[in-house]
């Protein structure tokens, strides 16, 4: 190979390696990108981070919308976990309080975390939570049973064709995550 083509090869290889590194970074950039897209579109039933900045509604609409409540333990979790009301009917803009119960029947302390999901997906962004037990981890003593509340309302801009929506919570056992994190902190 001549000198010129050798240096041309070098600069080409440098560009290609740069592309490789860039695409590796892009793979990781898809994580926050995906979260942003989910938040904007309600894709995947994500209700987004609404712990802050949700205003109490000012007016109440005419329509009646059915909101159903589901609860499920994810694999490896076996708390008694369920909704106290299977469903409620609400007007858009009306603040409603419902509750779930959870019971730890083990003889040791456990930590649970509930992850919400809304179906249909496009309804997710109209379900606004003012308070929710899913905002915190739930630490339950052996045998302890708790009632956990949700204060929510349906945004008035919800499209006409949505008459029923389902809010589902999956409960995860994060006891080990806690202890492993604590172990890391101790070190």
């Amino acid at each position, binding site marked *: *190979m001549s000198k010129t*083509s050798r240096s*041309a*090869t070098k600069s*080409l*290889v440098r560009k*290609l*390696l740069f*592309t*490789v*590194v*860039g*695409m*590796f970074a*892009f*793979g*990781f950039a*898809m*994580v926050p990108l*995906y*979260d942003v897209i*989910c938040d904007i*579109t*309600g*894709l*995947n*039933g*994500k209700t987004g981070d609404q712990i802050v900045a949700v205003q109490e509604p000012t007016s109440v609409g005419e329509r009646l919308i059915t909101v159903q409540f589901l609860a499920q333990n*994810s*694999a490896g979790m076996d708390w008694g976990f369920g909704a106290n009301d299977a469903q409620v009917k609400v007007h858009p803009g009306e603040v409603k309080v419902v509750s779930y119960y959870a019971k730890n029947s083990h003889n040791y302390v456990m930590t649970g*975390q509930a*992850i919400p999901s809304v*179906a249909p*997906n*496009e309804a997710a962004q109209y379900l606004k939570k003012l308070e929710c037990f899913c905002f915190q981890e739930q630490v339950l003593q052996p045998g302890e049973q708790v009632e956990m509340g949700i204060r929510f309302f349906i945004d008035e801009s919800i499209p006409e064709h949505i008459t029923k929506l389902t809010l589902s919570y*999956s409960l*995860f*056992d*994060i006891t080990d*995550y806690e202890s*492993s*994190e604590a172990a*890391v902190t101790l070190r």
Partner: protein
Amino acid sequence: MSAAHDDHHHGPAKGITRWLFTTNHKDIGSLYLWFSFAMFLLGGTFAMVIRAELFQPGLQLVEPNFFNQMTTMHGLIMVFGAVMPAFVGLANWMIPMMIGAPDMALPRMNNWSFWILPFAFAMLSSTLLMDGGAPNFGWTFYAPLSTTYAPASVTFFIFAVHIMGASSIMGSINIIATILNMRAPGMTLMKMPLFVWTWLITAYLLIAVMPVLAGVVTMMLFDIHFGTSFFNAAGGGDPVLFQHVFWFFGHPEVYIMILPAFGVVSAIIPTFARKRLFGYDSMVYATASIAFLSFIVWAHHMFTVGMPIAGELFFMYATMLIAVPTGVKVFNWVATMFRGSMTFETPMLFAIAFVVLFTMGGFTGLMLAITPADFQYHDTYFVVAHFHYVLVPGAVFSIMAATYYWLPKWTGYMYDERLGKLHFWLSFVGVNVLFFPQHFLGLAGMPRRIPDYALQFADFNWISSIGGFLFGASQLILLVVVIKCVKGGKKATAQVWEGAQGLEWTVESPAPYHTFTTPPDPKLIHAQ
């Protein structure tokens, strides 16, 4: 000194070190091809286990967990160990000779990119012997199956994928550098053979998506060992994210496995039709369009995860759009054959079978692209039939066609045409008996990746397994043909095939260890 120096450069070194330390593109091409064939037999053995278990309903031969390990390892080894290295081997052998270059641009990296592969696959295969068994989560390794619920051997799988990725990336950088910088004077881009064109585009696809694959397995590694929650819902992650990142790699990956096949077929059909390739320019643009579209259709693999309707429509139409450039290619091949003086030697038989059967696989792909229909077909044997039709009589047939086509150039001898034709016909019948009934199984609702099934699926599974055994056994004929041809036979001429065009046919057969150390006469370079 100078005489010894010359000796050293005119022939290969002797013994095992020739293969260990070689930087010669032809040696490395042969290594890749032999390695790929070994992996083809290993992955094929796993497929035989799968078909033997599915021969009749009930659990006869293997445990369900071992069955899952077989489907996973079969997929991984065939995709990353058989099809991809075979095309890289063909690229190594043929691209420098096709563009009139003395060797690849980065010969030492070339050696390295091959020699890390056996380690990757030794590591991956060794998981079969480990406690808890090999990966059992399917070749698509969806989280959380591959993270929370994975066997302990998943870490070996992750590092094996890292090494395979590094090998592919190095191979692609080498191919791009060779094609862009090493072409002989007069070999302009639009005079390059289509095999070179399709590989140039494939190499760019590899560079774009293999790092994403490396990224996704790295995230898995972090989730498994370092307590992160990329894909763990309990920690705020999302398993569906895995599918998006995986298929962002995975869809271009399927074109990585088929674009070089298009190049091979575009070389073979004109030779045996004794006509120029019809629509060369449109072939180049069609290849580039397919490559571009492959980046914006990934979510058609996951219509059922729950997507907004706008997303489903976008991915449905974008997917269907791929049929347009692919159709251009199929019509060009047919137009090349139209009124040509065709003869039907083994490479041509494989190439024609490719055109017909790949098109069928393309049509089932179109059926799967229809979102509402996909909800029915998703994760059934219909999907299995679809991707095996595009990969086996598609990619694999094209590799076999290429082997028969260039074998006389590699060995200097003609292969046994009678055995070659026998291999073709047994493979052709076998592959259709094997995969065609799987369409019916899928439409009737048989799910993929299960070791046992309901009784109504028994007959078609029985037929499919018989086809599988026939197809599997007939691949040994290929091994016999290649070994016979390496050992001797009728001497091949430089041009080998009457209608063959291109620089690789201007050097003698077998191709000397070093070719085009001085650039070829520009007059030899034909406009395609």
